[in-house]
């Protein structure tokens, strides 16, 4: 059984819709909101670096001047100065980080908030184009990637570049010849770092893939445990899993090799630097053209060289991944929602529930129309069942009525008002939507029922449950109405979720109800309760039902048969059966079958 590695979701993939400069400028823009802090950070950083960079000179002073003169008072001053510098370095470093963290975290917060706000405004077409997993990944992983830079990475790295430059400048000023010798190791350091970075990156990318294969293989085994057991196939399954973990083992060993060599190699190159200082500096010391203090100074500076170089190298990979994340995040923030309220939009109030589609043409993709010249009028209080094959356009009708999309031509009116002239909010407040898959939010059953009206009293909740006949089922849950439903209602059964979604819609009490009947189903008893609940829910409202069950369809005031975005038949159940057309052929099979069973 083959495993393919998915390249599609590579987190480091770039589209290059934005130049690097723009991305950097916008990210820094989020930090620059806090100008005063930013300035303070710069000043603190300068002080911090001064303390760090000056310390070796104090040591040199002690060695070259205080030691030989033997002036203990001067020595005490020098020692105190050294101690003072260390404490200063610590305090400035801490204050700088303190401010930077505050700025960085607020910047991350703001970016996440901006992205979320934009996502909330985004029209439904956006969510159709992208899986929710990807959108969530923008809000979490991609922003975390940017966070690596904003939470100090950016500023720290510039500080490191500055330190490296300063050290270079200082040692050149102190002793040009020795400085040039020391810097010989520099290019080696850079080459090695870049080489290992590249190697590690590809090795780790591979391990990320193998571990995801391990996880998915495991998830499947656990989900399919009952099948494996009932066919007594545990041995094969174990053999398969061994193959998978072997893949992961190999990939990790590969990465481990590079990881094991990287740091020691870099450190060895530093050792070469010190070797050169000892050799050349030692000769100069013998000649008397160099002091011991200067030699120690060079050794100290060489040691301080490493970490910056490693951080800078790290920064490069971080920047790449932050840019990749930033690009995706900003591209969403910059997307204008396709469905917007017109400037002088009015609120839709006192809805009677008259619906009219006038010559509506619409397609999700340019060039392929789902609905063509579609017209439909629904009277207040009427229940219309829409039937038809998958792809006939049933869900589209519902999407358009909710204005999840804007139509290409024609108009949709509620009580004679074009829905594009009213606010989206008031429109949706007037329409109750019950989806095929009942989505619940974390919280209790009661919270979910009250979702549309958090101020509803317990009596109202009970009344709603009684009306749709769901009280007994839901009250017999473990903690009754206070039962936690779990993530997406996962702790409840499909049928229980559906009943809750009915109660939720009922409590909202909309004039217009749109119901996408569930295709997946439940045991007969709950089914019975659901059918009853649905009838009660529809009573007295204008309703559009995307129907799958004969029993639902039969009860509708009017049935509409859709085929390729057109109404091909229309009428009551009896009328349509008598017609012996599309409707008849759709359902005669089911009817005959059911009759045969009786």
């Amino acid at each position, binding site marked *: 059984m083959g495993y393919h590695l998915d390249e599609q979701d590579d987190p480091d993939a770039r589209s290059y819709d934005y130049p690097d400069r723009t991305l950097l400028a916008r990210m820094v823009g989020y930090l620059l909101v806090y100008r005063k802090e930013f300035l303070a950070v710069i000043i603190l950083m300068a002080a911090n670096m001064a303390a760090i960079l000056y310390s070796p000179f104090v040591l040199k002073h002690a060695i070259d001047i205080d*030691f030989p003169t033997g002036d203990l008072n001067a020595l005490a001053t020098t020692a*105190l100065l050294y101690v003072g510098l260390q404490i200063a370095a610590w305090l400035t*470093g801490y204050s700088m980080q303190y401010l930077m963290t505050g700025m960085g975290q607020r910047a991350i917060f703001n970016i996440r908030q901006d992205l*979320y706000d934009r996502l909330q405004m985004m029209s439904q077409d956006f969510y159709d184009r992208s899986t929710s997993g990807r959108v969530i990944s923008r809000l979490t992983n991609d922003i975390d990637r940017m966070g690596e830079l904003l939470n100090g990475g950016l500023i720290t790295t510039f500080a490191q570049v500055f330190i490296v430059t300063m050290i270079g400048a200082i040692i050149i000023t102190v002793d040009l010849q020795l400085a040039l010798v020391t810097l010989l190791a520099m290019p080696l350091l850079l080459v090695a770092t870049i080489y290992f970075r590249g190697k590690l990156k590809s090795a780790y990318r591979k391990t990320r893939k193998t571990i995801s294969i391990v996880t998915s293989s495991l998830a499947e085994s656990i989900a399919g445990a009952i099948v494996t057991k*009932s066919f007594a196939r545990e041995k094969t399954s174990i053999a398969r899993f061994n193959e998978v973990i072997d893949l992961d083992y190999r990939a990790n060993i590969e990465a481990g090799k590079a990881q*094991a060599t990287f740091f*020691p190699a870099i450190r060895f190159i530093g050792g070469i630097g010190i070797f050169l200082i000892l050799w050349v500096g030692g000769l100069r*010391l013998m000649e008397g053209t160099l002091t011991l203090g200067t030699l120690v100074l060079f050794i100290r500076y060489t040691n301080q060289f490493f970490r910056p170089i490693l951080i800078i190298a790290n920064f490069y990979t971080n920047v790449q991944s932050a840019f990749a994340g930033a690009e995706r995040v900003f591209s969403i923030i910059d997307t204008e929602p396709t469905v917007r309220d017109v400037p002088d939009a009015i609120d839709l109030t006192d809805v009677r529930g008259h619906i009219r589609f006038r010559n509506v043409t619409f397609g999700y993709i340019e060039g392929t129309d789902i609905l063509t010249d579609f017209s439909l009028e629904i009277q207040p209080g009427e229940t219309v069942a829409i039937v038809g094959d998958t792809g006939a356009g049933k869900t589209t009708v519902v999407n358009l009525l*909710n204005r999840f999309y804007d139509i290409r031509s024609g108009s949709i009116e509620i009580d004679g008002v074009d829905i594009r002239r009213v606010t989206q909010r008031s429109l949706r407040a007037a329409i109750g939507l019950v989806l095929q898959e009942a989505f619940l939010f974390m919280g209790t059953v009661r919270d979910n029922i009250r979702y549309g009206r958090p101020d509803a009293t317990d009596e109202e909740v009970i009344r709603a449950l009684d009306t749709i006949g769901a009280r007994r089922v839901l009250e017999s849950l473990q903690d009754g109405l206070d039962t936690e439903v779990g993530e997406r209602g996962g702790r409840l059964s499909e049928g229980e979720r559906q009943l809750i979604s009915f109660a939720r819609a009922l409590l909202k009490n909309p004039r217009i109800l749109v119901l996408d009947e569930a295709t997946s189903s439940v045991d*007969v008893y709950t089914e019975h309760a659901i059918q009853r609940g649905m009838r009660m829910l529809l009573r007295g409202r204008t309703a559009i039902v995307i129907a799958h069950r004969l029993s639902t369809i039969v009860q509708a005031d009017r049935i509409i048969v859709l085929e390729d975005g057109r109404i091909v038949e229309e009428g009551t159940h009896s009328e349509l059966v008598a017609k012996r057309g599309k409707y008849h052929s759709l359902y005669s099979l089911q009817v005959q079958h059911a009759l045969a069973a009786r």
Partner: protein
Amino acid sequence: MGYIWRLTQYPLRHKRLFFGFLVSATIGTAFNVLTPSVLSTIIDSVIPSADPALLIPYSLLYLGLTGLYSVFDIIARYGAVLSAHRSIYELRQDLYEALMEKDLAFYDRNETGQLIARVTTDVTTMREFLVWGYRVIFMGIVQLIGTYVMMWLISPGLTMYMFVALPVVALFGVAFAKHVRPVFFRARQMYGRLSSVLTENIVGIKIIRSFTSEDREGQRVRRANEEYRDVATRAFRLAALYQPLLPALLGVITGLLVYVGGVRFVEGSLTYGEFVAFVALIGMLILPARFLSWGIGMYQRASAAAERTFYVLDHEDEIRDPEQPVEISDIQGEVEFENVCFGYDGNRMILDGVSFRVLPGQIVALVGGTGSGKSSLTRLIPRLYDVDPSPTIQYRGRTYRLDEHGCVEIEGRRYYAKDGKIEIDGTVCPVRPPGRVLVDGIDVRMYRLTDLRRRIGIVHQDPFLFSATVRENIAFARPDASQEEIEAAARAAMAHEFIERLPEGYDSMVGERGVTLSGGQRQRIAIARALLADPRILILDDSTSAVDARTEMLIQQALENLMRGRTTFVITHRMSTIRNANLIVVMERGRVVEIGTHEELLAAGGIYAGIYETLTEMETRALQRTSVETQEG
């Protein structure tokens, strides 16, 4: 220590590798702590000698020591990687085998997500410890000791002063682990909350819009986002306080050394070289402190992870092969339930004294609402669960278990069994022996598990298919089946036609990365899978209603082919199937309330008659109208 010790047994299986890398790390560290003394020799002996010829070998000695340190360090790191990954490979094997052997009760008690985390995330945490933990803790200690030994060798007097540094290093390691890590842990928790709130908002966007609750949800996101921001800020700030603290403290100690060392230099009891070596050695103390705090953190996390993971290995299965299994070549398919009681979590009885017998080849329809126990009953036959092993009594309509002392506790009071009965407030309750499930007259617990399960097929309405080809899925029970056999099974399951139409026919991948199949198609593949396995006893869980009529008819046909000649337990609402059953068993709250044929039960006018009405009520009404209209039209 317990769990880490057990974890360590894995690298200890390859002792040479494990101790090899630790020894290599020790040797490397030893070379490292030797380098300052080369500095001191160069400064004190080579430079004053003014002999350039001496300088090169000493400088090279320094380079050589650094080189050897690197080489041994690389060997140690690589050895640690090998040892850790090999251990993890073996641990994963053990875990997976353990998971495969677990009975279903185990899977009911543990959420899938958590089980997966135990074999992935938790194992990764342990691997991190095996790769880094031992090496780092070991090197930290060796370097700490080595550094002090070197100091002592250079200047015992000065070393005394430097012992000040020791508690600093130790305290830092502990304080960091104690203060900073919990805050980061909390930050991770808050992050989890934030991301689940965000997930809900994205997945539930349509509902949010439809209920115009954008503002409320927006507030919720903002609050979660703020909480995360605040705790993350606190965590990073705390880290900013601690992280530069260590170099600062060592810097302060260096300052102390400048004074004390200077005084000794003036006294003549310390040389330049010794002083420089001391400065270098103090710098080396940073590594043990970092390594120890890091190591402690890893140890804590690995220990928690190991506890969760070893739980999987330690969990004792209740369902195991008998010590002396009955040898069988085939079974007839007679099934009998004898006073069967069963509960998943001990207190609530899902099945309560079920008894009935089914002859080979009979079809039994199990009827009842959710929670009536019909699914649980069928699962006892292939021993996916075992019958409750304790004797029971009935008292005031409720069933109570007797513990191993023959004692029963009712409303806080304990009663003991005597002569096969228990007297409670004057009522004498006879003790019922523990229940049994018999296949061909033999207790199912007497068979070897594989012998038993191979002869029992289960087809679920929403079946689980593996991410594999259609062929592999059908041939799941018999991978050696020929193409003809597979196709024959698919034909009988009414699946051949649609499989042929798939882009790659029988080689099409199903599951997450493959073609999407409808529920009906998946069900028919599962039927083919069961057909090929050719079980004597069949369990059909078909309790929910299917979607469209065409598929329904195909499935009905497929199921009829499958049931032919097999003892079948069917959980269904299809009237046609129920009516044709040889035996209808009506269950309610774990008890058999009615049993008989369709006609008998209808005539009795009990619960079944009521259910029959419910089942047909809606459809009948619709169909009566329809049938009249059809005839008229």
